[in-house]
């Protein structure tokens, strides 16, 4: 699907009335989770305008891969909303079905430089899909806006 702004070729925006979704492709699960976070922040702001000044470690545990994705993205969104942080670089250090360790980089939101497009109310389980084949990994995530 074409959208009127620039996106990487591994990211697609999913048509969903009222809400917004992303479809992310990656060669492995580490990159898949990193790109999903990038995709979520691309709904929030122009990710390329985020400077990688601060570094934070993030750890998440969950019951399965879908819950892991919801908790990972929810944690980043929570820090964005409550601490006015924006993140633009995501590195997954370790991941398995039920836990993830990551390092994320970003900076404090500066209204002079960062335009905020929208607010994400929640990362939902609705329509969550993972696909894995010889070409790599794919995940679909729907957000409540």
């Amino acid at each position, binding site marked *: 699907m074409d959208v009127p702004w620039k996106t990487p070729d591994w990211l697609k925006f999913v*048509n969903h*009335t009222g809400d917004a979704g992303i479809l992310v492709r990656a060669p492995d699960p580490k990159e898949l989770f990193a790109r999903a976070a990038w995709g979520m922040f691309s709904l929030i702001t122009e990710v390329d305008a985020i400077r990688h000044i601060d570094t934070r470690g993030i750890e998440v545990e969950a019951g399965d891969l879908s819950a892991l994705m919801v908790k990972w993205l929810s944690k980043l969104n929570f820090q964005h*909303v409550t601490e006015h942080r924006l993140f633009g670089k995501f590195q997954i250090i370790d991941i398995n079905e039920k836990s993830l360790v990551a390092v994320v980089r970003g900076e404090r939101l500066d*209204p002079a430089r960062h335009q905020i*497009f*929208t*607010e994400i*109310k929640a990362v939902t389980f609705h329509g969550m899909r993972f696909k894995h084949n010889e070409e790599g990994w794919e995940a679909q995530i729907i957000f409540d806006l």
Partner: protein
Amino acid sequence: MRYEVRKLTDFLWELPQSGGMRVPARFYATETMLPQIFADNAPQQAANVAHLPGIVKASLAMPDIHWGYGFPIGGVAAFDIEGGMISPGGVGYDINCGVRLMAAKLTGEQIAPRMRELVNQLLRDIPTGVGAAGPLSLPEQELRHVAEQGARWAVEHGFGTESDLHYIEENGCIIGADPAQVSQHAWQRGREQLGTLGSGNHFLEVGYVNEIYDEAAARALGLFPNQVTVIIHCGSRGFGYQICSDYLEVMDLAVTKYGILLPDRQLACAPVNSPEGQNYLGAMRCAINYAFANRQVIAHHTRKAFGKALGMSIAQIELRTVYEVAHNIAKIETHTVDGREMHLCVHRKGATRAFGPGCKEVPIEYQAVGQPVLIPGDMGRYSYVLTGTEKAMLEAFGSTCHGAGRAMSRVKAKKAAAGRNIIREMEAKGIIVRAQSRRTIDEEISEAYKDASTVVDACALAGISRKVAQLKPLGCIKG
């Protein structure tokens, strides 16, 4: 998907009870609206809701029904509090998202020359989108008071007047809020957002009374032709979103604990009288009160912005609260079902309470005409003031529609707006629109929404509300 739809009346349709459905699913709509409604999977969602234990009479859908998380948006479901369910999905993420209507002493002609200044002033004074921290940053202890007292907290802290409270559903404070059931994350998300509009479809609109359909009702509500109006559409912000997210997790476990069979995991629920159900009810009521306080603070700043931009005193402008009503909420109410009085947990998700004339919950001044119902439309067309009816009480647990509903996804809307200057297009129509982000304006273009008039007409024809007035926009700020 193919549906076997039965016609009950010209404006009410039914998916009969089948399979695990405990009651039928009923849809308020005109015949011409049916293809669009049934092209979506929302009707299946309405049928899924009919599977839940303790549901009474029918799973109802308003003419603006569309897909939602688990429960459809535009749905009404009432459960017997003895053995029936309560579900966060039946309320939605934005708990007590709702609408306040205020009316000025002024006419549209009087403010037209200053509209640009007024809208710019509103954008400066009312924090809208994300990152925009509100002028209030409250410690958790103070937020607990907000959660318990609602709009009363705002009035006691200098935001608006006592008389506002009289014209808010539940007088701006629902009883039974239990701050002990709210998570630390929710307090943190709520800390800086009181008095902010939020993004997405939330807005503040300055408009005027374009047409009056029911003179007696308009008079009772104090509305007259060309009168300046303000609509505030927002909810409980991150505080409510977090409470919904937290309790979706709780209910997911409760479903297994209580052995509830669900056709869709997203309908996660618990018995109203279970600890999980009561905890959610207590936490949700905190968010209900937060939203009442939020709109009260915004209303206060709106009056001040009018004063500054128009160079008038608040007494000259007035902007009295006509009414404020929620459209994402679950409440314990008493209704007569098949001649029997029942205590019910009524879920309205994208549906508005529409109590009829004579109901004690309606402000005394409006009792002869029924409770005002406020239906926001899109930013380019019109909004409506309706009233509740006795038929709504008998058929729909005192409920009606809530808005137009989106016709296009955000991506599609942005595509439709590409290469156009929507702000200038709106200005050519005499509507000044401002937002923190131009992308928001593109996503919210008029044509991205269904025509609110068809939704409102269907409700009026079905008899579950009466049309009182149509409001047209002059200016709008969006998150």
